[in-house]
């Protein structure tokens, strides 16, 4: 552990990496906009099952159509952030592990985990996140609801807790890929599971409900923030959700330290 680096240093580090990512993307002429618009297209396509359910049922587990729009907005926001911040860094780190160039990342004078989590960004996916904010606002306007300051705060808190949990799960996957390179497919699994966060958590019962609340907290990421915005989230839930996320992160951090000790560096 490196300890003693200031927050300013890490901000500059993130800035430097952001610059590299944008430059690399421009090099390939991927086009900031095409990527972003494609992202929105994907989230629209992913909404199909939910739309079908609404068409046949009017309400889904007590969520009306416009309430579901708010939920979808929360989902799009979270998945945009995941795609912009977490997923590229995970994939890049795994590439480094596979090619043996993680050595160079680890030789940088900063915390190893932070270094891995900022190895790459996909800033154009933030367009998707903005689209999500748009959906949330549209849904709330249609419902004629203005969330109180407390509601907003709870929603933000839940959103952060959700992102933290996502990071934790990502770190766990990274730890696993130290062991076996093939485990990289786990990010696909994560992405596939994330897709279920489109649905209100109430849809899932029993075992799956437990999994999606405590192990892979999809509920924390989308359902709870939406409920907070709609003013029907209990205070206890906020606390337990934050506790879950923090616990996940602590476990992930401990496992990371262990994994790094066992790092064997791809031999040349």
């Amino acid at each position, binding site marked *: 552990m490196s300890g003693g680096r200031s927050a300013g240093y890490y901000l500059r580090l993130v800035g*430097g990496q952001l*610059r590299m990512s944008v430059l690399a993307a421009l090099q390939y002429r991927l086009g900031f906009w095409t990527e972003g618009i494609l992202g929105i297209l994907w989230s629209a396509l992913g909404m199909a099952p939910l739309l079908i359910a609404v068409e046949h049922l009017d309400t889904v587990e007590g969520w009306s159509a416009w309430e579901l729009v708010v939920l979808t907005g929360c989902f799009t926001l979270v998945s945009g952030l995941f795609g912009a911040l977490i997923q590229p860094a995970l994939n890049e780190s795994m590439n480094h592990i596979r090619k043996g160039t993680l050595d160079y990342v680890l030789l940088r004078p900063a915390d190893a985990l932070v270094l891995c989590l900022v190895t790459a960004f996909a800033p154009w996916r933030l367009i998707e996140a903005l689209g999500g904010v748009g959906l949330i606002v549209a849904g709330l306007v249609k419902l004629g609801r203005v969330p109180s300051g407390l509601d907003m705060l709870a929603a933000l808190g839940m959103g952060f807790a959700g992102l933290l949990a996502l990071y934790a799960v990502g770190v766990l996957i990274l730890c696993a890929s130290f062991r076996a390179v093939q485990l990289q497919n786990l990010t696909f699994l994560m992405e596939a599971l994330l897709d279920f966060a489109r649905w209100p958590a109430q849809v899932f019962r029993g075992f799956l409900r437990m999994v999606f609340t405590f192990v892979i907290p999809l509920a924390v990421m989308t359902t709870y923030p939406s409920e907070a915005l709609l003013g029907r989230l209990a205070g206890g839930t906020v606390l337990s959700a934050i506790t879950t996320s923090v616990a996940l992160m602590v476990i992930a951090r401990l496992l990371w330290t262990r994994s790094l000790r066992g790092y064997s560096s791809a031999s040349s």
Partner: protein
Amino acid sequence: MVPSASPAVEVRGLCKQFRVARREAGLGAALRALVRREYTQVDAVKQLSFVLGAGERVGFLGPNGAGKTTTLKMLSGLLYPSSGELRVMGHVPAERRSEFLRTISLVMGQKRQLSWDLPAVDTFEFNRVVFDIDAGDYRRRLDELVSLLAVGEVMRRPVRQLSLGERMKCELVAALLHAPQILFLDEPTIGMDVAMQLSIREFVRRYNVEHGATVILTSHYMEDVAALCPRILVIDGGQLRFDGSIEALTRRIRPLRRTSVGADEYPPAEQLAELGHVVERGAGRLVLDVEPERVPAVVQVLLALPGARELVVQDAPLEEVMRELFRREAGAERGA
């Protein structure tokens, strides 16, 4: 080179074991491995001890899988030692302290740190941020390195368009921007042509002399090591087999001096056998391996030959010495 009082690297009883998954061939074994995987312990480094002074240039020699790279990675803090003591510039490398990481740098011939799609100068700029280098220092060091390595134009082209040699020069710039006091080089000249090898070798020597940085080098090319490192450590089977100068190594493995002369007429075979071991005889050239203390006497005899010319006395070639060394070690291992 005068090593300073406090050593740059201290290694005592260093060991590293790896767990390697093992599986026999065939379907049955594959099915079993699906359920339970068997592991074997491999000793990559066994009880290694040595001390390197600040400012030294040291070469690690050894066959593939000898433990050179593993040692290098433990010295740079990438791998945790299984046991033993390890200090580099007074730090324990595995702790990965920021101050430690700023004093070292690692360049691997087979792995890039430069971003593939971007010009090298973008990675330089990124390293400025990563290593928190003062803008003025950065400018000054970059100018110096760029003019020494002549990459002023090269560093503005995307890395993927560069030749192997140009890329390595840029890798060196990226690795040296933060002015490390210890430079680890793992096979830096691999796959390069002779001219490029020479220029990189010359650069490393110059950098060492001008900045007093300790250089630790592994290379498959004996000439790299011979030309660059006054001191070499031979590592084989994870153990230290030799520590000293190239000359000392050669004397130990091949004490005989190779003596050759051209002449119009050679003495008969039985008389030659008294002088030394005959390596080659014919086509106007005679080559003998002679014991060191007998060299003056033998030279007298050879110079007295009719039409004697071009007398040369030298050490056996390094490649041959190494081959001999590793053959001997392998033999000893089998014998034990």
